């Protein structure tokens, strides 16, 4: 029997660094200022738009966007929405289940390549699920802003969120 290597000892002895929040962490009125932020590049914007088969040239043809009064390509608002939602996931829904619905999704000022997005959310509603005792339902209003603090998107999201003592884990 050989001595465990340093790496084997590390794997055997490591403590899990948990991420995310359980249902019990959410109370109405709490505010999250989400991590990281994200600068949106032209590559992000055009790749997202072409991969999702979106055919509005404002989102991939600079000359067309300029001819419509924009200073550059317009970043597809669905990428803005997805990025702001993505930045909110660790705080809001990483240990949850799938998101159930989005209401009141409104786009704000146009986003252009090079702009930097950040996200914040407020908890709007917290309720237990009668049909699904391992999980609750939580609703948040999430807002995204650019580097000038102009609002670029807002929406209300409802998610299934796991309780700390859930018997069956989604993941």
């Amino acid at each position, binding site marked *: 029997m050989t001595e465990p290597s340093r790496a084997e000892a590390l794997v055997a002895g490591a403590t899990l660094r948990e*991420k995310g929040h359980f249902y019990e962490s959410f109370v109405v009125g709490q505010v999250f200022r989400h991590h*990281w932020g*994200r600068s949106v590049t032209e590559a*992000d914007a055009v*790749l*997202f*738009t072409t*991969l*999702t*088969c*979106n*055919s*509005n*040239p*404002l989102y991939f*043809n600079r000359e*067309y966007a300029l*001819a*419509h009064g924009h200073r550059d390509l317009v970043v*597809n*608002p*669905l*990428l803005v*929405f*997805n*990025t702001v*939602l*993505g*930045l909110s*996931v*660790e705080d809001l*829904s*990483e240990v949850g289940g*799938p*998101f*159930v*619905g*989005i*209401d*009141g*999704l*409104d*786009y704000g000022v*146009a986003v252009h390549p090079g702009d930097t997005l950040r996200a914040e959310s407020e908890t709007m509603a917290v309720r237990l699920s009668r049909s699904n005792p391992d999980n609750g339902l939580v609703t948040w209003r999430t807002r995204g802003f650019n580097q000038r603090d102009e609002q670029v998107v807002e*929406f209300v999201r409802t998610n299934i969120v796991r309780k700390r003592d859930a018997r069956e*884990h*989604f*993941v």
Partner: protein
Amino acid sequence: MTRIAELTGNDNYFEDFHVGQRMRHARGKTVDVTENVLITNMVMNTAHAHFNADVMAGTRFRERLSFGGVNLSLAIGLASQDTSENALADLGMDKIRLRAPVVHGDTLYAFSEVLEVRDAERPDAGVVRFLHCAVNQRDEIVFEGERMVLVKRRSHWGDK
């Protein structure tokens, strides 16, 4: 010099939409790692249900789930040539519901219905409100939602 009106279709200006019009869009797209994992990671979504096949093998889903934001964006994309190719702006969405999980290999097809057409604050465009949905290869609805689009009027933009 290309005229800008030559870059887009001529059957999808504001004047072409009427309430009750229902459209089945021509192309479907199969969701794969390229769509789900790439976009999920690109937008900083940290939920590894979308990108960790090992952990998902131990769940009732057995495999990675495509991120709902990707599914709805693809549905809108598949609908876009007929509904917003001549849009000046996407204004927003509402009543978005994700009805069924999507996994790699599923193919999405999009449908749209015109719910409302109205004047905009500017004279060169109007607002169209659509109901969109997407079905998978088994005709199960995976997404539905409303979307508001500011669409050019042919009267102002058709000869630009």
